[in-house]
Each structure stands twice: as structure tokens, then as C-alpha cells.
């Protein structure tokens, strides 16, 4: 089992991150009521971990008693849709991308009514049950609109917990009906605290880990705990010893393969600006995409790499181009076009 999964904190008590936020969530869960929640923050910040901890605080161990259920639903008389969701004794958990495009509104309408109207099988301290909707910012506008009055009407039997990366794509009427909980990505202190705890459990020495090693891991992690744990595991996995692994300041933290490819692309763009170079780079883009690196991550990482290598006067145009082509990727169809266009644009900026 990867360390990331092995050490996912199970209850609020175990949460090593952001003590202040943890305290506030705990307080909410222990009070008599709970408002609808909109939990938002960057990926890897620990939103899901916190939501499951809230469920645990509400319903005790039975909240863990979940199973994956597959259901079919008649979207129209002739069209059946199959989707999966997580079902617990007191909650549902669903993810819009598992519902299939254009179905999210109908399915959510049905499920929520079902949950709101059926009786609880097991007793709990709360009369309401919870529907967790992951990636709520990817819900269609129609689906969000359909939640509006539902959130008010079934308020005695139902609470929604919406989880999103950002509130920018959540419609105002939903924001008006939820308490928004911001989950910041962990800072240096929290990440190193977790790394040290894991190091201890995994019999790595010395603990606390050497400063420079921690700094290297943190720099690569982009304040993402998941990535930090993966880096530590990767760094340690190449070292000898099974009883006790010894690390030092000079222990190397290998960057992910795909990052190295993007560094190469940046170097190629800086070195030669030509049509044949563009063609060579294109092959690399295809490789990255084939390895499921999202085009958005490609553009962002590439921008970072480029900015460390060009003169100040070129930087603003490159930033604007990156934003422009990321936008196009989002609304367009073929991301390779926009990655190439970005590359060509940067070459153009560099030539002048």
C-alpha cells in the first residue's frame, strides 16, 4: 500500500493539518445542527479527508460502513443510464463525472428525493442524513439550479456537503444556501510534521528528517501533501536497508518523469525557434498526453520552466499567452492545437 493511502488520517483527531480549521470543523460537527457545507480548496489540501472526518464525528464508526453501489436509472422511456455511487447507512456520496454527461441533473433530483424521503435504517444522533457531492464545481448549471429549493425543502432530513476546488463555478443561489469552508493547502510546517510522523512509523532515521531534504521535498510538492508523501517514498525506495533506512541532506529526490520532459521542452523552445523544432516538440506533447498528463498541468509547468529561463521583458507576453491558451483548451476541443499555438507564440516572442 502506498504511504499516501496508508496514512490518510481517519478521524478529525488524527488530522495533522491546519489545527485551527480542524477545531472549527469539530465544533460544527459537535454542535446540534449542521448547515449545508461548501468545502473548497486546492487539490491535495485534504478536503475529502476532512469531510470523512466530519461524517465520522456525526455518525461514529458506522460512517465507514460504506459500499459501492451500481444503479440504473431511466433518463427517458427509452434511455437507461448506469452509474455508481457510494452508499453508507447515513449518507450518499457521488461524483458528477461518474454520472455521465447531461444526466447529473435528473440523477441528483431523484437520489436526493429518495434519500430525503426514505427512513433511516440505523439509528443515529441526527435526524438528517448527508449527501456528499464531490467535484461540485463540475456540476452542470442545471443540476446546480435543481438543488436550490431542494436544499430548503428537505432541510429537516438532509444536509448537503459540496466539495469543490473553487467556488468560482458555483452559482450564487447555492453559495447563498451553504456555509463555505475554505481548506488551504498545507504549509511547510504541516507538511514536515506529517513527513516526520510517517518517517518515524517507517523506521527511517534520523527523525526529524534533515532540513535540506525536507526543503527539497516541499519545493517539489507545490504544497500538496500527496505529492510530498510520494516524493519521500520515491526518495527512500532507492536507498539500501530494510530494518532501518538512513537518509541525509544529500539524499536525492527524483522529479517525476513527466516533469523532466517538460523541462526538456522548455529548453528546446529557448534554444531554437523554428518549424522543425515545433514539430519535434509536438511529439513530446503527444507523449505527455498519452501518459495522461492533463494539458492544463503541461501549460502551467511549462510556463514555470520558461519563466526561469527568459529575460524579464519577455515574461509578461509569455504569461498572457499561457493564460490565453489555457482558456482555449478549456473551451475548445483539441488541446494539442492550443499547446502548439502556445509554443509557437512563445517562439515568436523570443525571436523579437
Amino acid at each position: 500500500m502506498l504511504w499516501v493511502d496508508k496514512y490518510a488520517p481517519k478521524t478529525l483527531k488524527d488530522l495533522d493539518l491546519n489545527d485551527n480549521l480542524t477545531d472549527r470543523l469539530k465544533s460544527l460537527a459537535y454542535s446540534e445542527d449542521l448547515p449545508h457545507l461548501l468545502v473548497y480548496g486546492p487539490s491535495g489540501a485534504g478536503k475529502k479527508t476532512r469531510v470523512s472526518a466530519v461524517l465520522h464525528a456525526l455518525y461514529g464508526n458506522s460512517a465507514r460502513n460504506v459500499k459501492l453501489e451500481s444503479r440504473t436509472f431511466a433518463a427517458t422511456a427509452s434511455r437507461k443510464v448506469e452509474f455508481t455511487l457510494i452508499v453508507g447507512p447515513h449518507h450518499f456520496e457521488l461524483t458528477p463525472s461518474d454520472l455521465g454527461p447531461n444526466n447529473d441533473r435528473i440523477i441528483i433530483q431523484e437520489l436526493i428525493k429518495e434519500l430525503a424521503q426514505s427512513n433511516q435504517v440505523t439509528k443515529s444522533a441526527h435526524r438528517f442524513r448527508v449527501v456528499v457531492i464531490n467535484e461540485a464545481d463540475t456540476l452542470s448549471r442545471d443540476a446546480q439550479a435543481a438543488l436550490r429549493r431542494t436544499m430548503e425543502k428537505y432541510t429537516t432530513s438532509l444536509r448537503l456537503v459540496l466539495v469543490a476546488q473553487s467556488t468560482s463555478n458555483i452559482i450564487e443561489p447555492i453559495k447563498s444556501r451553504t456555509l463555505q469552508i475554505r481548506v488551504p493547502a498545507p504549509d511547510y510546517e504541516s507538511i514536515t510534521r506529517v513527513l516526520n510522523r510517517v518517517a518515524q512509523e517507517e523506521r527511517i532515521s534520523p527523525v526529524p528528517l534533515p532540513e535540506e531534504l525536507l526543503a527539497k521535498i516541499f519545493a517539489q510538492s507545490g504544497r500538496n501533501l500527496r505529492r510530498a508523501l510520494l516524493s519521500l517514498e520515491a526518495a527512500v525506495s532507492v536507498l539500501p536497508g530494510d530494518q532501518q533506512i538512513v537518509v541525509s541532506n544529500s539524499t536525492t529526490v527524483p522529479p517525476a518523469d513527466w516533469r523532466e520532459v517538460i523541462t526538456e521542452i522548455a529548453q528546446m523552445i529557448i534554444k531554437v525557434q523554428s518549424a522543425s523544432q515545433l514539430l519535434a516538440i509536438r511529439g513530446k506533447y503527444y507523449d505527455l498526453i498519452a501518459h495522461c498528463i492533463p494539458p492544463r498541468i503541461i501549460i502551467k509547468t511549462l510556463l514555470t520552466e520558461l519563466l526561469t529561463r527568459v529575460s524579464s521583458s519577455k515574461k509578461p507576453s509569455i504569461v498572457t499567452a499561457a493564460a490565453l491558451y489555457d482558456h482555449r483548451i478549456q473551451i475548445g476541443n483539441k488541446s494539442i492545437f492550443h499547446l502548439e499555438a502556445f509554443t509557437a507564440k512563445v517562439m515568436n516572442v523570443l525571436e523579437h
Partner: protein
Amino acid sequence: MDARQIPWVEKYRPSKLDEVAAQGNTVEVLRKSLKLANLPHMLFYGPPGTGKTSTILALCKELFGPKLMKSRVLELNASDERGINVVRKSIKTFAQLTVSAATPEDKQNYPCPPFKVIILDEADSMTQDAQGALRRIMENYSEITRFCLVCNYVTRIIDPVTSRCSKFRFTSLDRNSALARLDYIRSNEGLMCEDGVLDLLLHAANGDLRKAITYLQSASMFHQGAAENGMEVDSTTVTMESVQEITGLVPESVIEGFLQLTESIDVDTIKRAVEDAVNDGWSATQILSQFHDTIIQNSLIGTNAKTEISLLLSRIDRCLTDGADEELTLLDLLVQCAEIRSKY
């Protein structure tokens, strides 16, 4: 029902027209129609949490009383299926129904006018087709059925429908009415607040009373839960500190920091600041809206620069709505802003 587990927004939903705060003119007109026991078709529109749903429900209750309301009022909202078929079948069927008789008792206590009311809440999410099918029904059965459409976005209602309705615009609540209502709830719940707490809540809620009430209750729950959890807090007094975090407002220091960064074009520094803000979880639209307020009020930025910046803000808002990456978009915003300011 266990009163403790009803959220305050519902507990304090107005059940009479008199309890609806602000919305003076609208309430006035409706009160008159209550006296005349007659109603036109109506369209309520306005931003979230300003009392639209509450007002129509309260009005119906006062017209028919709770018992008769069951047979005289049909409430449909966006969570109900309301495609064209539903309009043609269920809505039409209800519209055609003979008006049920009122008991002598109801008649004594309520006006009980001889018509039914169909509330189409959140009508802006009905399809154009479905709205089109409404037209006829509104006309044919207007003797015995009145419609009340409720929505946030009035432009999504088709003209032929709006032209058949008396329109009532609900406005964001003014500070005084909102404060009075909020303070009433506070004292009714036996809650204490530090100075400035209610003002801050109202400022953050921006005219949305539901939001303000949710904030207030959440703050109170934090205190209560924290006390129950054995922490050293006063469970009955809400502090400024606990409210600040609840409102989700980006601290002014962060916004001011961004503004300062646009005084020179230093892409690397701007990038670090943007990364930090995004990692801290602040949402780009919230930053954008507060940044906008700050720019508008800043007297050091000249007219020409402001003009160009407003074009920029419009474009940035569009990008965010389209789902462009928040970090890149904010970075672009600040870098371009810096470029504009360097020109003037």
C-alpha cells in the same frame, strides 16, 4: 419536531407578509391585493436570499390559511421535473381543476378567494418550450388559476410570459432592514455578539439575508460546539475573530498586497504571490470582486488606466466563468494590470 435541528433560515422564514423585511413597495402592493382578495399573474425576480419564495408562500398562507392551501396551491420548483410534457399534463390539469370549496371556518378567518395559485419557483431553469406551453394555460384558465413565477434571472423568462405578469423586483436588502431582522433573530436565540459582528456579517452577505443568517448561526454553532468539545470559549458570545473566517472574505491585506504588486512589472514576485493565494484556497472570483472594489476606490489610479483595467476585468471574469485555470488567470490579471499602470 425537534426545534433544535431546524436551521435558523427556515425557523425565521416569514410566515406573514408583515414579517418580510424591506421590499417596501412590493409588500405594500401585495397587502392591498390581500384586502381585495384578488391577484394578477405575478413574476417575482431578484438576487438570492431577498425574500421571494418566502413572500409568495406567506401570501398564500394569508389568502387561504394552512388547510385550504393544500388543495389550492401547487408549488413546483427546479428540483421537480418541469419539461414541456409536465406543463402540458400536470400543470394544465391542476389549472383546469374546479376550485375546491372553503369550509365556513376558513372563510371566517381567511379571504379564501375563488381561485388556485400555481407557484413556479426557480422558473428561470424551465426550458423555453415549457415556458411557451405555459402561455396558453395562463390565458385559458386565468379565471380560476393564478400563476406566480419566481426567479433569479429575469432575462431567462420569455417575453410572452413576462408580458402576462405583474412584475415585482426584489432588491438586495438595505443595511437597516437587514440589521433589524438579524438583530431580532440574535436576541430571540439568546445570543450575544461583539461590537461590529453584525455589521461585518451584513457587509460580507452583501444584501443576501439568508447568507447573513447562515453566517450568524454558523458562528454560534462554532462557539457552542467548541464549548461542548471542552475548549476554552464563551459559548454565548460570537467574536469578530470567529466571524471573519466564516464569511470567506479575502483579507484586505492580501488584496492590498496584490494592488501594490501592480506598481511595477515583476512577474516572478507576482507569480509567487498568486501561487500562495491559490494554495491558501481563496477563490479567484472572490479575489477578482474585491480587487475590483479596491481599484475603483483607489484615487491614485488615473481615469485612463482605470478604463483599460475595467476592460481587463471584464475579460478576466469571462475567462473564469469559462473555467480557465484560476492561477494562470489571476497571474495574467495582475501582470496586465501592472503593464497598464506602467503606461500612465
